[in-house]
């Protein structure tokens, strides 16, 4: 029954095509078949080695990065040695030999990332909890997409917004208020001391926080969504409040993933360049107040590298090497944690 109707469905042109192809195949000499097989084997091997070489290329990239940083930093390593890590003075023009120490940018990198994380982690986790537990269903998707899109905006946009809009706002309205509130208190008074400033570590940290906020939110939301609904439903069924479900079910279940995500964000904050360069002030001196100018490793490289030479350039390479080693360990730890979570999910 079925056979004839199928045959009728094949149009004349199709049939003739098939016939021609079959004819050509029949005419082909037997030797060509062996040749074709050989060609297959050759292209097979070529493709295999092409992919393998490309994969090894990724390893070479990492090796090349480390090697080039060491080569660039070598003169500075030899000249300054370990004192580079403890010297605060940065005097590239000094005669006869420049005195260069990395303490200022290293301090700035740590402090700005720390402040940024202190602001962004609680807020980011709060938004992630909001997105997975509290937000009305119809809003979750658009909200989540918006956050992910914001995470993709280039950092220079955040940087220039911070320079034109946020820094003046913070210096005129937020800093004076904090300075007044903390003046006279022993330690806080000096941390939040001094005149308000457009260019300061604090302003840079806030921009950094706003920049990594979508990133932290997106990762923690993904991690929170790995919690099996049954677990949460049972907790709700026992009469738990939203907070108790989050506190006793969601967070314990996802702890490793959340820490991994936070460390990934930390790796980003440590190495971020364009968001901080405009407003950090580029001062290598370490000052008590976070409202005074500072610099980070990446900001120092970005603003000085193009006009540097000799030992000065080498010192910037050394800073770059330190930054890379630092972020390497942070990112490696983050990935190991996230991998552990994935394995748990797979099991």
């Amino acid at each position, binding site marked *: 029954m079925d056979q004839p109707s199928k045959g009728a469905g094949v149009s004349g042109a199709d049939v003739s095509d098939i016939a021609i192809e079959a004819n050509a195949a029949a005419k082909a000499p037997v030797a060509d078949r062996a040749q074709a097989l050989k060609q297959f084997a050759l292209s097979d091997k070529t493709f*295999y080695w092409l992919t393998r070489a490309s994969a090894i290329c990724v390893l070479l990239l990492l090796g090349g990065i480390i090697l080039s940083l060491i080569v660039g930093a070598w003169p500075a390593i030899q000249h300054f040695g370990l004192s580079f890590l403890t010297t605060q003075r940065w005097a590239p023009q000094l005669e006869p030999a420049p005195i260069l120490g990395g303490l200022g940018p290293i301090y700035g990198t740590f402090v700005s990332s720390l402040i940024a994380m202190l602001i962004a982690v609680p807020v980011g986790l*709060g938004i992630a909890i909001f997105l997975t537990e*509290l937000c009305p269903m119809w809003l979750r998707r658009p909200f989540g997409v918006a956050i992910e899109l914001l995470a993709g905006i280039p950092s220079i946009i955040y940087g220039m917004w911070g320079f034109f*809009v946020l820094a003046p706002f913070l210096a005129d309205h937020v800093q004076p208020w904090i300075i007044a509130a903390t003046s006279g208190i022993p330690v806080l008074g000096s941390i939040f001391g001094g005149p308000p400033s457009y260019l300061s570590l604090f302003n840079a940290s806030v921009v950094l926080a706003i920049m990594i*906020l979508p990133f932290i939110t997106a990762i923690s939301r993904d991690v929170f969504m790995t919690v099996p609904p049954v677990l949460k439903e049972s907790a709700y069924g026992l009469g738990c409040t939203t*907070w108790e479900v989050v506190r006793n079910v969601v967070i314990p279940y996802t702890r490793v993933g959340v820490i991994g995500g936070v460390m990934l964000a930390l790796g980003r904050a440590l190495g971020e*360049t364009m968001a901080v360069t405009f407003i950090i002030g580029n001062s290598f001196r370490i000052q008590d107040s976070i409202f005074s100018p500072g610099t980070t490793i990446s900001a120092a*490289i970005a603003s000085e590298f193009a006009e540097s030479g000799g030992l000065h350039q080498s010192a910037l390479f050394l800073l770059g090497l330190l930054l*890379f080693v630092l972020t390497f360990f942070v*990112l490696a730890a983050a990935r190991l944690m996230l991998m552990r979570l994935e394995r748990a999910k797979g099991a």
Partner: protein
Amino acid sequence: MNSIYARRRRRNVIIRVLCYAAAAFGLTWLGLILFTLFWNGLAGLNLSVFTQMTPPPGSKTGGLANAIAGSAIMTFLGVAIGAPIGMLAGTFLAEYGRHERLTTVIRFINDILLSAPSIIIGLFVYVAVVLPMGGFSGLAGALALAVIVIPVVVRTTEDMLLLVPNPLREAASALGMPRSLVIKRVAYRAARAGLITGVLLATARVAGETAPLLFTALNNQFWNIDMTTTVANLPVTINNFVQSPYEYWRQLAWTGALIITLAVLTLNVVARILGRERNTQ
């Protein structure tokens, strides 16, 4: 008993309010950024931005034509160099080396490269390309972008190929297809939308990258598409104009920032739509 309930409820309400506040706080800042960007950027957006060269200091006319062209070419070159390498490497991880030790190592290293500070990539390319070539060049900039593209494409390619059901490959192999043809004709075709998504995401990622271009491509005030010398590009132009004292330059910086953001958002949205099509199939 009642006091416990009251306490639990109170604590829950406090946390809920905090979460709502966090969402409002975060969205306010992010909304504000987009609002300022569009407000300031649109004010300077007109045809001359796309037809005229970047202005000399103090000038009140001029556009971003050379910077836009330079950025487009460098981004394209970067993706054209980085994407094939990334795809081949991703193919190895997902197809050939699925059970090899090497794959685990490469995947781990790739994930680290994926989030390595982009300014470090700039330093690397400076030593590897700029110094041997004897000067800053657009090609060095494109290569720096390619180094950023590779890990992104490796990751997405591997993920997408791993989603292709194994019976497809087995069926093709059973028909006598060589392994490379199984990958090229069957696996690639099944994962096509995902692979394109990966390349688009990588393009979006590098389109606004500034740090690695600062001392590889540098910048150029004039029209130049000769990739062996310095080439104007949008991110570095914005970087220079933001810190300038000239009102007109700052206006152009906002407009340039808006153009970059729109390009990046469009790429992301298109990638997302493509990705969703694949999921609903």
